[in-house]
């Protein structure tokens, strides 16, 4: 018999604002008094290449025959001033990641895989290691605010110099390599005591602003005999103005990194709330280059969440000359592999979500300096896996380009795209699917 003294209760509804992850973070912050530090880049859903579609060819466009008609993928970077521009077989490069953040075997594997695939790797905040110089046919040397390990011999050993002004995961932020990962070797390379935190400043120590940078670039060119290209890497924050100033300062190549870009360690609040998605940044950077009459004269490399050949093709269609991958390359090596699930569980996480790279306990041996863990990564096998992945991405991009009737990836264009969402249409400046309109289109009311 129904008990009328206890009426039916409403169904419990979790708050969309105070979701489980949000409340868990509030409890964690209340318990520790410290903001969350992690790696891995932005994790929330952001407007992305997934919100764009290729139109393909039917009547009004003529497709190329798959596997028979050539779709070229080569790219030359640094044609503006450098005597020796970089020639790549594929327009997918490996982004800068430091020795220190990554293990020696991981750096070697990146070099091996990139060389097999005919592309370049990039050093990071920590200097050049023999592993990556020895195994990278084409190596880009990052010139960072910290200047850890910076020396003229390595500058002259590099195939290009990338001046890092900003990073997509943390525009305006400095680096953090916590003491847990400072082994004897890392400490020696960085001129710091073992085991202490290493702070990388957010600004370069010996220049302030683009006018100084122009003179700095002159010095770097004088030291390297005007041979190698000078890249300038900017975080995806104000891409039109930053690209304009980078070109004005004398860049051969602009590297534009969106907020989905990875980082070894920084504040979660920074990763998730500073910067713009790469989708929103590319058209503005391209517009800056076009306004200066420098599109394709100064090459544009974009990064930040590139995962597939479709992403590559979409970046090309929006006007990029090449892309760079970081997090995806680490996953290809074996980062967050489910075979280490029990060990991830022991660290309080799960395969696919492990992001405490700064703690130096990575079971995959990639983001650690622990000898027992780093020994787990076979650099030859890692290089093979990365090469496979790069080949697949390239094949995917070629397949799409052929379907759009393009004999080179660089012939892809915004007209090959439509957008699934209003946001993506507005950011990419391509029509909303089924229409010829995007928000902000010149000559329209909205």
């Amino acid at each position, binding site marked *: 018999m129904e008990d009328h003294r206890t009426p039916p209760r409403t169904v419990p509804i979790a708050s969309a604002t105070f979701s489980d992850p949000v409340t868990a973070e509030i409890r964690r912050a209340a318990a520790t008094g410290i*903001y969350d530090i992690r790696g891995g880049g932005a994790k929330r859903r952001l407007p992305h290449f997934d919100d764009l579609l290729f139109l393909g060819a039917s009547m009004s466009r003529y497709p190329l025959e798959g596997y028979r008609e050539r779709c070229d993928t080569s790219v030359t970077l640094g044609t503006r001033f450098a005597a020796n521009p970089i020639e790549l077989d594929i327009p997918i490069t490996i982004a800068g990641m430091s020795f220190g953040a990554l293990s020696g075997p991981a750096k070697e594997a990146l070099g091996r895989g990139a060389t097999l695939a005919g592309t370049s790797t990039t050093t990071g905040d920590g200097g050049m290691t023999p592993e990556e110089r020895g195994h990278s046919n084409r190596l880009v040397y990052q010139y960072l605010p910290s200047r850890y390990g910076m*020396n003229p011999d390595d500058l002259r050993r590099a195939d290009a110099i990338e001046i890092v002004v900003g990073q997509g995961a943390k525009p305006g932020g400095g680096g953090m390599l916590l003491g847990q990962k400072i082994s004897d070797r890392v400490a020696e390379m*960085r*001129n*710091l005591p073992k085991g202490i935190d290493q702070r990388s400043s957010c600004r370069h*120590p010996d220049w302030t602003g683009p006018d100084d940078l122009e*003179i*700095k670039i002159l010095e770097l060119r004088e030291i390297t005999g005007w041979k190698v290209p000078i890249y300038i890497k900017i975080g995806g924050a104000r891409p039109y103005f930053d690209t304009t100033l980078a070109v004005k300062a004398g860049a051969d190549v602009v590297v534009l990194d969106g907020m989905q870009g990875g980082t070894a360690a920084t504040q979660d609040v920074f990763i998730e709330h500073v910067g713009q998605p790469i989708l929103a940044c590319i058209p503005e950077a391209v517009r800056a280059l076009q306004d200066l009459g420098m599109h394709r004269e100064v090459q544009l490399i974009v990064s930040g969440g590139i995962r597939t050949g479709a992403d590559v093709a979409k970046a090309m269609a929006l006007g990029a000359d090449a892309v760079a991958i970081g997090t995806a390359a680490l996953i290809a090596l074996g980062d967050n592999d489910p075979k280490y699930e029990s060990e991830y569980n022991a660290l309080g996480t799960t395969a696919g979500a492990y992001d405490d790279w700064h703690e130096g306990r990575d079971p995959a041996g990639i983001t650690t300096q622990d000898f027992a863990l780093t020994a787990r990564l076979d650099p030859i096998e890692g290089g093979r896996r990365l090469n496979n992945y790069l080949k697949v991405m390239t094949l995917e991009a070629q397949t799409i380009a052929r379907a759009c009737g393009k004999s080179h990836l660089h012939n892809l264009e915004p007209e090959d795209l439509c957008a699934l969402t209003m946001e993506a249409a507005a950011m990419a400046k391509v029509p909303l699917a089924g229409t010829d309109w995007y928000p902000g289109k010149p000559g329209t009311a909205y």
Partner: protein
Amino acid sequence: MHTIDLSVTPLREMNATLQALTADSNTRVWEIANPKGAHAIACGLDAGISVTVMGHTGYYCAGMNKQAAITVKGSAGPGVAENMMSGTVVIEGDASQYAGATGHGGLLVIKGNASSRCGISMKGIDIVVHGDAGHMSAFMAQSGNLVICGDAGEALGDSLYEARLFVRGSVKSLGADCIEKEMRPEHIEILTDLLARAGCDAKAQEFRRYGSVRQLYHFNIDNAY
């Protein structure tokens, strides 16, 4: 001695000539005439040669120097001897900001005054300033010695690592994590040697030493501000 006249010879040609010299080159003494504030003079050298610049220089003179002994008979612009690896750079006049920034080794002597951020992020270089040094000098300095025979500006040694700072005059203020430390006999010995090599007649005993408290060496939210 060979002279290169920068009013006639292009910068690239001058630097290429000096950069091509090796330990067994016949001509080891060079003079640069008419620098007129040009940038990147004598940068990237890598031989035990002597170069005298006859006048004022612009940015990044002697940048990333290795082995060479470079003297500027005038004042130097920003970033002189930046990231120097070894050798000696002497500025007869004043030096603008970031002198010796990120230097890994060698000796930088500034006979006049140094502007702000002298020795910023220094990583093993020795710097001797005969006069005063501006604010934020030795910011994030990692190792090496900064000697200031005159006064130091604000925030000396902010966020300092293991570099040693010696100041004879006043210090307007110390930066975060920087404190005065005891001058022990080994410091007197280091400083005496540096002063002698820098051609400075000051007495080591007249200086005070500053160094890191090391409270910023491990991340602690209580240090945030």
